[in-house]
């Protein structure tokens, strides 16, 4: 009896070990599938045009060269876009975070009568939206056409972010703390600034990241509202460069020599642009990466 039990235990751990090996293989596959194209793009951006043209770049840069980046450095339009994007992202994130905090804090207070009505009104907008054109007319009526404001205010309120933040305020900060502060004569603004915000640092950093990434990669709103070239964010400027081929595809015959040459020259620059336009968003992630560990997001969906 004892022996039998022991042997099954060995069997189980053997099965578990096999299971562990299988999952490890899967993880390595994931790393390859996701990582390889990323590495390929970076390597291509550092390779010479000839190597690209001959298709000799497989994994690492071939004939290391900075030609693509030198070309991009002189590409004025890209840097105007870069500057605009940084400005829009910074301003949009500051405004967006203020809005999220100002909405989430009252909604997290149980003593706040009327919070259910507010919550329902916020929540309803996630179920039903008026759509593109009525809001376009509104923006035009407000005089926001061809200004920076539609882009800056694009993700000004995100109901899911507000729910995440509200839940974090409500669950991670004990109500006694507020009561104690109230007895000491603190008002709600002081409670928010002195108690709620410092205690919710982790979740706030995560939301700041969401905001930054959303603004940095924002494209459609700017395409609709911004017409002046000097106001265009990076994504808008990159679009014709990135999708040049889509427009020129007819039915697949791309073999004419001149077209091919133009394509090769463009490809290196494209790879470079892909790298320099993605790096800021990735940097933002690595700054707040530590907050993604553990259960920062636990319970955040169900409000």
């Amino acid at each position: 009896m004892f022996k039998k039990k022991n042997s099954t235990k060995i069997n189980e751990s053997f099965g578990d070990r096999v299971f562990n090996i299988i999952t490890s293989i899967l993880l390595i596959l994931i790393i390859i599938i996701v990582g390889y194209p990323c590495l390929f793009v970076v390597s291509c951006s550092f390779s010479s045009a000839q190597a690209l043209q001959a298709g000799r770049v497989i994994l690492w840069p071939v004939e290391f060269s900075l030609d693509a980046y030198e070309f991009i450095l002189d590409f004025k339009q890209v840097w105007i876009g870069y500057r605009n994007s940084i400005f829009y992202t910074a301003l949009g994130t500051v405004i967006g975070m203020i809005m999220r905090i100002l909405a989430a804090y009252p909604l997290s207070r149980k003593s706040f009568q009327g919070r259910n009505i507010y919550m329902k009104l916020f929540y309803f907008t996630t179920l039903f939206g008026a759509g593109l054109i009525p809001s376009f007319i509104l923006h035009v009526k407000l005089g926001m056409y061809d200004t920076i404001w539609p882009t800056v205010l694009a993700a000004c309120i995100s109901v899911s972010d507000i729910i995440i933040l509200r839940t974090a305020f409500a669950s991670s900060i004990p109500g006694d703390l507020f009561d104690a502060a109230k007895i000491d004569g603190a008002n709600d603004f002081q409670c928010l600034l002195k108690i709620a915000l410092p205690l919710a640092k982790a979740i706030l950093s995560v939301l700041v990241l969401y905001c930054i990434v959303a603004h940095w990669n924002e494209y459609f709103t700017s395409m609709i509202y911004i017409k002046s070239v000097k106001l265009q964010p990076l994504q808008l400027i990159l679009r014709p460069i990135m999708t040049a081929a889509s427009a020129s595809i007819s039915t697949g015959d791309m073999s004419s020599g001149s077209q091919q040459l133009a394509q090769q020259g463009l490809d290196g620059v494209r790879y470079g642009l892909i790298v320099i336009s993605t790096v800021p968003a990735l940097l933002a992630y690595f700054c707040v990466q530590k907050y993604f560990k553990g259960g920062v997001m636990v319970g955040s969906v169900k409000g």
Partner: protein
Amino acid sequence: MAKSPVLTENSAVYQTGFQKFCTVFVKNWQLHLMILLPFAYLLLFHYAPMYGLQIAFRHYSPKGGITNSDWVGFGQFADFFSYYLWGNLIWNTLALSLYQILAGFPIPVVLALVIHVNTYKGLKKVAQNVSYIPHFISVVIMVGILNTVLNPISGMLGAYSRLTGTDYMSDIRGSNTAFRHLYVWSGIWQTAGWSTIIYVSALSAVPDELHEAAKLDGASRLRRVWSVDLPTIMPTVAIMLIMRFGSVMSVGYQKAYLMQNSANLQVSEIISTYVYKKGLAANNLSYGSAVGLMNSVVNTTMVVVVNWITNRLTDNEMGLF
């Protein structure tokens, strides 16, 4: 004389009701003041356009504006359904979206389980961080990568065709049959890793005692995934699925729009891109609003229906509302 006491009594009731409202409001005035700004934004940018939606039932002219243009009732909707490709548009939208949900939804869940059960911490960490990278790539760049990598001459495909000796490869970017696969699988490549975050953290909340008890009963790791891990994250999965269905008709139109070219338009034209082109680019605001409204109504209906089904299946435990 007999009436006046009644009147005063009534006004007294009214007064106390109003006063009660006032005291409640005054008691929380700071909180109301805080929420004033986001709430005003919500009213202006989310609710005011709903009022503007009436142009879907009018023939919008700049002179008449939102409230005074000619009323045409369901005329704009009738116009849409007399467009010979309307069925095609709806099918394209649904096909793309359902394909995306069916292929893309289970993958992050499985991936999260794989990450959770694996015991090599270093490998897990690398896999997680690498799989997050594509999330930070913008739509424009993603389409740019697709265009470059799939270039039949200079891209990976070109390299492959030279490697295998096939001279000519048709351009997959302009292919009707490839569009949906490219769209969906590039999306999965981009978001699967990032989407695991929510599930991984839900999994880390599974109480250790459950695993210990299951281990004592002789359950293998695989068995515990099935009977302990999966049931505990089911509520999260259900909520994510309901939310996903809520945007069934608004599949990433930005990406579809950017991936469009004259050769694949037959499958890549979806309702949202059509709304943009007809409504804004071709300046037919009422028509665009009507098609957009139809789209929103389908979306809302989807959430309500899927939520109802979820509630039904789980005895009101897992629904969103």
